[in-house]
């Protein structure tokens, strides 16, 4: 997507992404269309408690991992 100076650059699941400044984790999940009850999130290698998603504002260069459960043995 095109980006502007106002946007912040971060990485989500290894992919570079640009977002409007001020966006929270909850907002990111909403934008990605993900159900927060089915995922877990790591921000810069730190677990982010689900209860805090709405309060966590993303910053430049954040490395976000969004994971869920899949079939495994």
């Amino acid at each position, binding site marked *: 997507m095109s980006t502007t100076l106002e946007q912040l650059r971060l990485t989500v699941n290894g992919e570079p992404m640009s977002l409007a400044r001020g966006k929270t984790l909850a907002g990111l999940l909403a934008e990605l269309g993900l159900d927060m009850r089915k995922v*877990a999130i790591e921000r810069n290698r730190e677990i982010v408690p*689900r209860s805090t998603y709405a309060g966590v504002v993303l910053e430049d260069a954040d490395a976000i*991992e969004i994971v*869920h459960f899949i*079939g*495994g*043995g």
Partner: protein
Amino acid sequence: MDGALRSDDAWTVAGRHFASRLIVGTGKYKDLPTTAAAIEASGTEMVTVAVRRVNLSDRNAPMLQDYVSPSRYTYLPNTAGCFTADEAVRTLRLAREAGGWNLVKLEVLGPPPTLYPDMAATLLAAEALIRDGFEVMVYCSDDPIAAKRLEEMGCVAIMPLGAPIGSGLGVQNPLMIRMIIENAKVPVLVDAGVGTAYDATFAMELGCDAVLVNSAIAMANDPVLMARAMKAGVEAGRLAYRAGRIPRRDAASASSPMTGLIR
């Protein structure tokens, strides 16, 4: 028979009670509906799951939880793909946040073609996970000394391989499995190697507390039928173990009396 089993023969790991002695893996099925149907048919109460990145390019992909309800089945997150203690801890912390519990399956695999458990790395990872508050069910080799060490460091279940993952060869070294069982104070499960129902029956007759099966169900021609077979096979093995089998003898003994014959 479930009713009976439920009441008279549950097993316990990390304080949780289970009537079913079959744990089913959720990998390798052709699709999620088949996964759900097979797990339903297996009668299991615990399923292993992997932790992976959400696929951002296909956000509407169906999710495992939509087919296998975490509220109905105890999810047992594994560390598949982790090769160090750090990776294992990091992965299972995410699992804990996603699932909300700390009962986990530790597996640190070596390279193909054996995918044999890397015991040195497994011991380190087990220590780190226990320190971090996890209750660790650990996949391991059939080494009775390593198994004892894992138990002593606090693992809640010992899960030696019966044979290489996905090989379908059944328990290759029953003597070692039995020696691990005889020496353990925590549950012992055969994990990996079960290829068909009688492998599960056999493992249970060795005295295992439960069996973990994935490929044998997921890759069978008819996964749902095989799930039923595994359910019955595990029950058969457990019942036979409790019943106390007759000894093996190298000579015959008649089943009908030889007296009272007409002349």
